[in-house]
């Protein structure tokens, strides 16, 4: 029963111990310790997930506010993504972080973020979720400002204040929900009192909109997306990978929990809130792609791409039907793996060549073929070319939006998604093209093979393979999702 606490508190405590340990440890020892902690946490998570559905009320904040953990299907999905990304990026950083300082601090906060994310996946009610949502912001901020340049510190603060602003908007909603729900435990189909809907329906819609905007900050939704392209690129590459692949997903998870498990779809479907949300999501999709297309710095370009891609997921959630929701969840996995790979590849490039702009990277494919191949394969996935993961998720998204319950957006949606896919190709593939076909004037004589260390290439490779596997065998996932998605509608 208490097993569920281990994958949450073990990494948090381990990270905390690393942080407060006053002695500067030997680098090798530090890496071994962190590696062991990561692997042990992964094991603990697997044990927890395999031991079946668990729930645990830890203690009560006040008489009616329990800290409560529960494992459910959505949680498992997010948790698996978190594990893969964290272990992969963790091993990547063992080499990458040699050219940064203060590694102990980095690994300490890295482990803490890992534990906090697990807690978010397992949180069983809104208060528990909110608690760890705040902790996530606080513990991931040091990863953003890690490099310690003035730019990084300002970006860290920007991230912090945007996120807190969003969290407080969420809290505003929680205050009102608490008085209009019998419980804040996540329940498929929502927990709003019918009497409350009758009495204060309009106000509750406003509350829902404020919460969408608030939690949407973390998911980089327009109009509060500006922190994301500032904060993600300044972090060390493995940290950017984690930030872009899973931490922004915390915002997505929050929206799933609030809309599908607290408000209930039936309350919001067809309301102005849904319309507004759809518009915001589509605006973000297009705007993100557009900005990425114009951006010359690779990591910034990837960050804008995250802005756009997360809103694919949000569009799926906002459409509020089964297919679109399935598509959204599939895109959570697909985008998580793909974006992690892209950022790690970018990190590998920076680590080996020190170059950050795309136009400096001519011939890079000749120098680091494996990395750039992986980059290319996942790029195709993100564009949505079959048989990679991105295709399946976009297929379901389009299917859902065309199924006809969202009016005119049913047609606008797929068009925007396709336009954005075109732009995605436009901003991701130039690196591949220049990398493999540097042109006639390229100096082949100075070319040297410099594939990065194995610790860097293997995580990239594994995640590329996983993202392809999702596309090749989507049925396992789709069947798994189909089992519970029906209960939400």
């Amino acid at each position, binding site marked *: 029963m208490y097993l569920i606490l281990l994958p949450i508190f073990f990494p948090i405590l381990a990270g905390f111990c690393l942080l407060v340990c006053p002695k500067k440890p030997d680098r090798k020892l530090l890496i071994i310790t962190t590696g062991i902690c990561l692997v042990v946490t992964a094991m603990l998570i697997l044990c927890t997930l395999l031991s079946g559905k668990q729930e645990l009320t830890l*203690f009560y904040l*006040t008489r009616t506010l329990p800290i409560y953990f529960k494992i459910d299907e959505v949680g498992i999905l997010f948790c698996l993504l978190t594990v893969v990304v964290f272990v992969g990026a963790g091993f990547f950083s063992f080499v990458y972080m040699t050219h940064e300082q203060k590694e102990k601090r980095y690994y300490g906060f890295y482990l803490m973020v890992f534990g906090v994310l697990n807690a978010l996946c397992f949180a069983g009610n809104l*208060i528990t979720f909110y608690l760890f949502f705040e902790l996530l912001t606080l513990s991931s901020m040091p990863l953003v400002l890690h*490099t310690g340049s*003035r730019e990084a*510190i300002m970006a*860290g603060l920007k991230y912090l204040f945007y996120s807190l602003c969003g969290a*407080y908007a969420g*809290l505003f909603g929680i205050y009102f929900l608490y*008085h209009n729900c019998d419980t804040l435990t996540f329940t498929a189909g929502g927990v709003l009192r019918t009497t409350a809907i009758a009495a204060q329906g309009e106000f509750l819609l406003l509350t829902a909109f404020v919460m969408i905007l608030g939690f949407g900050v973390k998911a980089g939704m327009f109009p509060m997306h500006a922190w994301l392209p500032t904060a993600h690129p300044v972090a060390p590459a493995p940290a950017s990978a984690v930030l872009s692949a899973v931490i922004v997903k915390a915002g997505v998870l929050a929206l799933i929990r609030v809309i599908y498990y607290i408000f209930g779809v039936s309350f919001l479907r067809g309301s102005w809130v849904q319309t507004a949300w759809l518009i915001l999501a589509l605006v973000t999709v297009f705007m993100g792609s557009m900005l990425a297309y114009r951006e010359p710095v690779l990591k910034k370009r990837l960050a804008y791409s995250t802005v756009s891609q997360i809103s694919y997921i949000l569009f799926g959630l906002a459409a509020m039907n089964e297919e679109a929701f399935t598509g959204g969840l599939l895109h959570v996995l697909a985008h998580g793996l793909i974006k992690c790979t892209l950022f790690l590849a970018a990190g590998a490039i920076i680590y080996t060549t020190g170059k950050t702009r795309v136009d400096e990277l001519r011939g890079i494919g000749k120098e680091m073929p494996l990395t750039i191949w992986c980059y290319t394969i996942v790029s195709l996935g993100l564009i949505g070319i079959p048989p990679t993961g991105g295709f399946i998720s976009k297929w379901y998204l389009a299917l859902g939006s065309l199924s006809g319950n969202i009016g005119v957006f049913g047609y606008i949606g797929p068009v925007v998604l396709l336009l954005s896919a075109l732009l995605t190709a436009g901003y991701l593939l130039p690196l591949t093209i220049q990398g493999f076909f540097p042109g006639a004037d390229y100096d082949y004589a100075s070319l040297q093979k410099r594939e990065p260390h194995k610790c860097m290439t293997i995580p990239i490779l594994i995640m590329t393979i996983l993202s392809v596997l999702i596309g090749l065998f989507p049925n396992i996932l789709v069947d798994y999702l189909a089992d519970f998605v029906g209960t939400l509608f």
Partner: protein
Amino acid sequence: MIICIILLPIIVGILVPLLPFRQRSHKEIFLEGAVVLNSILVWYLLLHHSDSTFLLAHFTGDLNISFRVDGMSMVFAGLVSGLWPFATLYAFEYMTKEEHENTFFLFYTMTYGVTLGIAFASNLLTMYFFYELLTLVTVPLVMHTLTREAVLASRKYLYYSLGGAAFAFIGLIMVIVYGNTTDFILGGVLDLAKIGDKTNILLLIYVMAFMGFGVKAAVCPFNSWLPQAGVAPTPVTALLHAVAVVKSGAFAIIRLTYFSFGTAFLRGTWAQTAVMVVVMFTIVYGCSRAVKETHLKRRLAYSTISNLSYILFGSVIMTPLGLTGALTHLVFHAVMKISSFFCAGAVMHQTDKHYVHELDGLGYKMPCVFGIFTVSALALMGVPGLAGFISKWNLAGAAVDSQNPLAYAGIACLLVSALLTAIYMLSIVVRAFFPGRDFDNSWIQTAHDPNWKMLLPLFVFTVFIILFGVHSQPIVNFFYEVANGVY
């Protein structure tokens, strides 16, 4: 018994400069012993209180000086007596660097007795008497350093407080004229038959009296004395200007609203709207000024202004739940703010740094102090699991429950203020712990954590911040009973 515990600190304070202590440590033991003894007596009294009123002096009619222990006084006296011994311990260490120690401890200890007088006053006149007395005994503390700045600040403090008390006095007169008694009775003492058609005048008087007492609670626009009074030594700023004095203002307003005018008379009137707007404005105003301020103690003082208005916001909701929220924040904020002030004081004591931008990298040299400061910052922001979340939860819950649209807007103010709190507190934490790459740490090599006299109070407060955060049920239940007049 009551009169005994009010007089003991006053007498002890007067004895400090008179007794010939051979060593400093003797004086410390004498003072600390007296303060602890008094706190024990207070707690004994609170736990074994009877409902009787102790009459000290009788003037005329039903005007008298008398004391009684009720729920509200239990909360306030319990809070003050819990904090005073720790603050005194801290002051011993802090004052080693200041002059005129005897004068300082004379007035510092006297203030304890006077504050208890406010807590235990059983009628408006008694409270008013001790309220004025509180102003007089704390002026020398503000003036302590005798710099030009300090003298100006204390003059301002004196004028503001006396002026405010004058307005409050009008309220007192009106309660005497239109009420049945001046005693504090939950639900109010106004006699509707006597009021007749003068409701609006009485409401106006209420607003004036609210603003009058509000001067001590630093309600906008009467708040500028508080940041200026930050020139006083830190134990004064921390204990008096974050707890005892300013919370006397909030306490007096609660007495006035709930126990003299009565919420039934005020709820839903324009007077409630007026004071609520003022309070909401102060919440946001205080925080915004805190963000702009770069002097560490003044920044915390502005934060106090904002947080005091949280308490007032709870009390002007004018429901039992609102009062519960107000009392929760009254106690929890006291612990959080005294903790952060003591951290600021420790930094100033150890390094002589007064401005936020001078704190770069200090977190590594003074890990305990800045660790504790971080906890109090997170608590003030309202991170769940720490005290601040519970009090904000109660305040917002009361606001939602009141069904008052203005109170809904108040919740938005609370959250805006929470965000601003995050900005002004966490920017300090980030500076201290993440100074940046090109940071030159040569000048802070000698800085280190202070000794146990300063750290012990900080640790105790931190324990309480966490304890209130994770296990608030008993104490919040107690506040709820107080707000419903069980005691």
